[in-house]
């Protein structure tokens, strides 16, 4: 095991750096720029049972130290992901990938997970019960402990792969939801999804995003993410994957010190396509400065 390697639900990964779902597509755009096998793994574009176009544009807005997005889960649907995206991915990425799954009903989640469970390329299933940009599903499962547990319980029945519950910070008590997911059999928790935000176009006096509201990500949300990771990792005994505004090796270390086992990097990939390899390269030096021999000790 190297200095950077960590174990996530029984699978050892070379380092804890995981591009977050929705910021890394299915990997090809980045594979054209660098060898994406340098990553611990990555979480692919949120996949639903049926193909989705998502929301109308504009889907993106600037924010202080961050951005808003309201893409709305555009994806080709699980069947095309399996028949087209995964074979293409196999050529450029030779590690287990994290499959990110969204849905609008328990059946949606179950059908999608059942299909992805059969794919040997998939290492983990990350269940997104926290998308703020779709209506009648998504986040509504993630804001109630019972609904969250129901999704996780149903999904666990149809897969033997580790199941990660991706949680929303837009709740009064994130710990109660994390605990409900743990009790329902989740193998890990990942958090935070985006904070619900909004901007207004001063000229039109109307919302900038076609969807009115969107999800805030980027450095602005980092302190909220650290707090959620700390609270949840002190309350559950399953691993926690920290995300939310991580942009540097120091941010990664702060997340690990807050209790995370691994770290997802989101918005940073969009403004600097080389963000993840840069972080991985900077980690040993940052660790040396702080007297950290191996990440697994944190």
């Amino acid at each position, binding site marked *: 095991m190297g200095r950077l390697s960590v174990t996530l639900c029984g699978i050892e990964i070379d380092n804890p750096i995981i591009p977050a779902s*929705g*910021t*890394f*597509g299915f990997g090809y*755009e*980045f594979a*054209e*720029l660098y060898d994406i096998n340098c990553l611990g793994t990555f979480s692919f*574009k949120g996949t639903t049972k049926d193909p989705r*176009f*998502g929301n*109308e*544009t*504009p*889907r*993106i*807005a*600037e*924010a*202080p*130290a*961050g*951005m808003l*997005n309201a*893409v709305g889960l*555009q994806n080709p649907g699980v069947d095309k992901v399996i028949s087209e995206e995964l074979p293409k991915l196999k050529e450029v990425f030779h590690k287990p990938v994290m499959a990110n799954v969204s849905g609008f009903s328990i059946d949606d989640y179950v059908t999608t997970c059942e299909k992805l469970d059969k794919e040997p390329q998939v290492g983990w299933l990350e269940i997104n019960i926290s998308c703020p940009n779709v209506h009648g599903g998504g986040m509504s499962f993630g804001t109630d402990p019972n609904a969250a547990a129901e999704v996780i319980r149903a999904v666990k029945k149809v897969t033997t792969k580790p199941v990660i519950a991706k949680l929303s910070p837009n709740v009064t008590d994130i710990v109660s939801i994390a605990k409900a997911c743990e009790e329902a059999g989740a193998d890990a928790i990942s958090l935070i999804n985006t904070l619900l935000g909004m901007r207004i176009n001063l000229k039109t006096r109307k919302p900038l995003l076609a969807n009115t509201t969107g999800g805030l990500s*980027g*450095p602005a949300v980092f302190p909220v993410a650290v707090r959620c990771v700390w609270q949840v990792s002190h309350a559950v005994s399953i691993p926690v994957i920290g995300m939310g505004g991580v942009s540097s090796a120091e941010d990664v270390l702060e997340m690990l010190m807050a209790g995370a086992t691994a770290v997802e990097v989101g*918005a940073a*990939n*969009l*403004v*600097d*396509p*080389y963000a993840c390899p840069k972080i991985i390269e900077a980690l040993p030096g940052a660790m040396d400065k702080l007297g950290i021999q191996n990440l697994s000790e944190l």
Partner: protein
Amino acid sequence: MQDIVCTVVENMAIAKDTYHMSLMGSFTESLRPGQFINVSIDGQYLRRPVSIFNVRHNVIEIIYKVVGVGTDILSKKTQGDTLDTLVGLGNGYDLSKSGDHPLLIGGGVGVPPLYLLAKELLKEHKTVSVVLGFNSKDDVFYAERFKDLGCADVTVTTVDGSVGIKGFVTDALPENYTYVYTCGPEPMLKAVYKAMKTSGQFSFEERMGCGFGACMGCSCKTITGYKRICKEGPVLTKEEILWDD
């Protein structure tokens, strides 16, 4: 795509709120007309996409309008300042379809990408007609540079008639042309779409997250499926366009 730290060589106002910036850097990719760059601006989180006006040796020239905080910061850059820039983004125009007598139609800050396009088409000895539309005299820039390139005819229109033909670009389209290349605000593109008598290519604008196809922030529906303006676009052919409304 390349990520390059460019040095500002020049940044000058050329019309109302409109700036011409030259950026020097070691570009290894050849850049195509209709492609764009994505510029990182200090204090702003997202990069700002700007279409390419001209390329010479190791210099990329862009023309942009100050429309918000980001472009305002950009307008204050001076010689020697550096800008982290992603270059060579988007598909660009396909020159092979032009026929002998392509017509280039630009509106406002949609004009710049047509300059490099005209240059490349003239290299291939095409007869290039150009129609450029602006709101008013103060907004007009660089019509004479299209003439200097050797374009067969360059027509300027202004909405208020303060210079050139009064009206919209569609009020000034020539009789004969073999193909249309256009770039401008969406209402203009729609009007051109209706008025044009041949096929053609349209360059679209959209708010972008990344600019290189990762975030799905700038997707649009086309007759041939969902496209990312930043990756499969910004140029779409007339035949694949599906208007919103």
